[in-house]
């Protein structure tokens, strides 16, 4: 018992000592859940970053001759722990951090980075956000020290509602979501944008349920069915999405589900056949988007890491853009890198990503796709070995999801 305590103390001190050495690379701290319920998502993200850094940067000359490296820090999904891990990373000499899972953790990190930079102007830190989509992060709470490489909830809704505008078959929409910020935002933007673009569409119902607490969605589906909705809009992710789709299939509900996260790790597998021709998603990429090199990259990735499926094109985009900015600025000073990233227009496999200067929000092409049976043509690759994959229904150009920003940025 005692020996274990001593042992852990010894390990702790040695870890702190080791942390200080090795400065030959440009290191980015990856602060995301690596244990606990969301560990699979965090783990997949870290592997994506490592792979992207190796193949897209290091094998192409690196950053001013140095290698780019990602190191994982486990925040266990908690906002408090995120701050502790930020401190740990700063102690070990990290000046760049990235995080994607959970708006709570992202808010915590943006706050902590802002405060740290204000209190330690000689040791500033830069935050690259690859997946936290709360619009306020580039809106009221926008920061010079934060860059987002994913489209935010509002932009995604803009893209989806533009698509719905053209589809005259849509007459009645039902909104269902998890009862927290993201679910509320999806509901709010759906109502605002649809009433503006298609006043003839009726919102026939709106339900919120607590996250991860609903086991049986049958009553919700019964309600959707009773409302006569032909389209369901949901921001649900993970099990709340898979269970919703399964219950809809069980009850024979004939409606299309517009989702944000149906392609997320594990969801296609959990939905399985239930999602066929019923589930739509909006992403910056999927396996069946014809691209020059990403398709091969994804195939190699899936082969190298069985059980994980390449999903985040934006991780690749982010890694290359950060490397580009560092090479352009000829510096790895966070402020210089931030200035070089601003207004950067970077050609990627799907078109161009533009980092808007006014709010540090990336603008990029997006795709709306539907879960369909693999046919070797439009659906060349299936998703997560289910026999079903994503078929592109519409391409959203970079300009089509752009929205004005409310950001008033304080610049150093």
């Amino acid at each position, binding site marked *: 018992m005692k020996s274990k305590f001593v042992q852990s103390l010894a390990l702790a001190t040695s870890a702190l000592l080791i942390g200080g050495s090795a400065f030959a690379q440009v290191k980015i701290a990856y602060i995301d859940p690596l244990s606990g319920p969301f560990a699979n998502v965090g783990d997949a993200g870290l592997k994506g970053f490592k792979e992207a850094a190796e193949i897209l940067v290091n094998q192409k000359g690196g950053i001013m001759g140095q290698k780019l490296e990602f190191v994982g820090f486990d925040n266990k999904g908690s906002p408090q722990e995120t701050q502790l891990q930020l401190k740990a990373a700063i102690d070990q000499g990290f000046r760049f951090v990235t995080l994607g899972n959970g708006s709570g953790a992202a808010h915590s990190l943006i706050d902590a980075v802002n405060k740290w930079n204000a209190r330690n102007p000689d040791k500033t830190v830069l935050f690259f956000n690859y997946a936290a989509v709360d619009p306020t992060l580039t809106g009221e709470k926008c920061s010079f020290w934060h860059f987002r490489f994913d489209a935010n909830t509002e932009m995604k809704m803009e893209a989806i509602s533009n698509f719905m505008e053209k589809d005259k078959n849509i007459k009645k929409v039902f909104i269902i979501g998890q009862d927290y910020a993201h679910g509320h935002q999806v509901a709010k933007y759906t109502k605002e944008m649809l009433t503006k673009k298609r006043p003839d569409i009726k919102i026939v119902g709106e339900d*919120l349920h607590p996250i991860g607490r609903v*086991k049986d969605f*049958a*009553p919700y589906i019964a309600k959707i069915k009773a409302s006569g909705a032909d389209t369901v809009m949901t921001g649900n992710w993970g*099990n709340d999405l898979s269970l919703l789709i399964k219950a809809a299939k069980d009850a*024979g509900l004939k409606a299309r589900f517009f989702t944000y996260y149906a392609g997320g790790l594990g969801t296609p*597998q959990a939905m399985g056949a239930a999602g066929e021709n019923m589930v739509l998603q909006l992403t910056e990429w999927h396996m069946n988007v014809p691209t020059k090199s990403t398709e091969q990259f994804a195939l190699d990735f899936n082969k190298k890491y069985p059980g994980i499926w390449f999903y985040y094109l934006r991780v690749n985009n982010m890694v290359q853009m950060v490397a580009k900015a560092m090479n352009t600025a000829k510096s790895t000073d966070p402020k210089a890198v931030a200035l070089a990233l601003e207004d950067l227009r970077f050609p990627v496999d799907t078109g161009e990503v533009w980092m808007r200067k006014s709010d540090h929000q990336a603008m990029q092409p997006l795709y709306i796709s539907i879960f369909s049976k693999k046919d070797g043509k439009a659906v060349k690759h299936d998703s997560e070995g289910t026999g079903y994959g994503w078929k592109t229904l519409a391409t959203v150009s970079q300009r089509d999801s752009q929205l004005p920003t409310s950001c008033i940025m304080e610049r150093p």
Partner: protein
Amino acid sequence: MSLLNGITYGLLLFMLSSGLTLIFSMMGILNFAHASFYMLGAYFAYQISTWVGFWPGLLVAPLIVGAVGAAVERYGLRRAHRFGHVAELLFTFGLAFVVEEVVQLIWGKVAVDYRIPAELDGTLFTLFSTDFPIYKGFMMLISVGMLVALYALLTRTRIGLIIQAALTKPDMVEALGHNVPRIFMLVFGGGTALAGLAGVIGGNAFITEPGMAAAVGSIVFVVVVVGGLGSLGGAFVASLLIGCIQTFSVALSISVTDVFALIGVSLPQGSQVARLTITQLAPVLPYLLMVGILIFRPRGLMGARES
């Protein structure tokens, strides 16, 4: 329709909580790891189904879970029992942690592809244009079967009578030549096997993933407490009650304001409470019910004793 959905959900809850009630009524242990055994059942069944199919798994998986449960009782709980109820309870608390990690270690963190067998995949009947899947009917059947079998076992067989006697007068039963610790081991194994059976059936109806234990962990306690600690019939009634409450509250589209208006209280417009709908509250209603029951009728609906 709502009633049907409610009953289905209620029967599922009963399946989950019957084992817990059994263990509690027999041994006085609140088993926090109960949902972990449910998860183990689902994973074992998945593993077996990939080898030999669903039907053998339906039989074998609960037995394995029961064996694991009995081993836990024999080598862990029995020792913890000597240090009192809190130690026992905390032991199961820690066990839940370890089971979840081990499951992740063996089967990974992502959901596994545990499917409903082809024979049970389909529509049983269609009511008001909504399909009712065969599998749900199967679930209901098993659940009711469990209630009948348990009831018969406990009141109509010799072993059931010995178990009941061992509860109240362990010394006397021991003196009559029965091995009381072994009876307790059997009861715990039996209770966990029931959880395992629920897992076999619930695992493919819903999703088999490492978080599934945590997702149902506390709701089964609500069922057992509301029904009355240790009362099998109470747990059955409470399961149906909670299932229906939850389903009906989802179906109703009224807000909290409307509810208060019914009793003549008008809430200030635009306040956060007034904006809540009953649907939003649905999943927390069981907890509200539990707290209410504990305050006004600590014995639960049909419980014989308080604690």
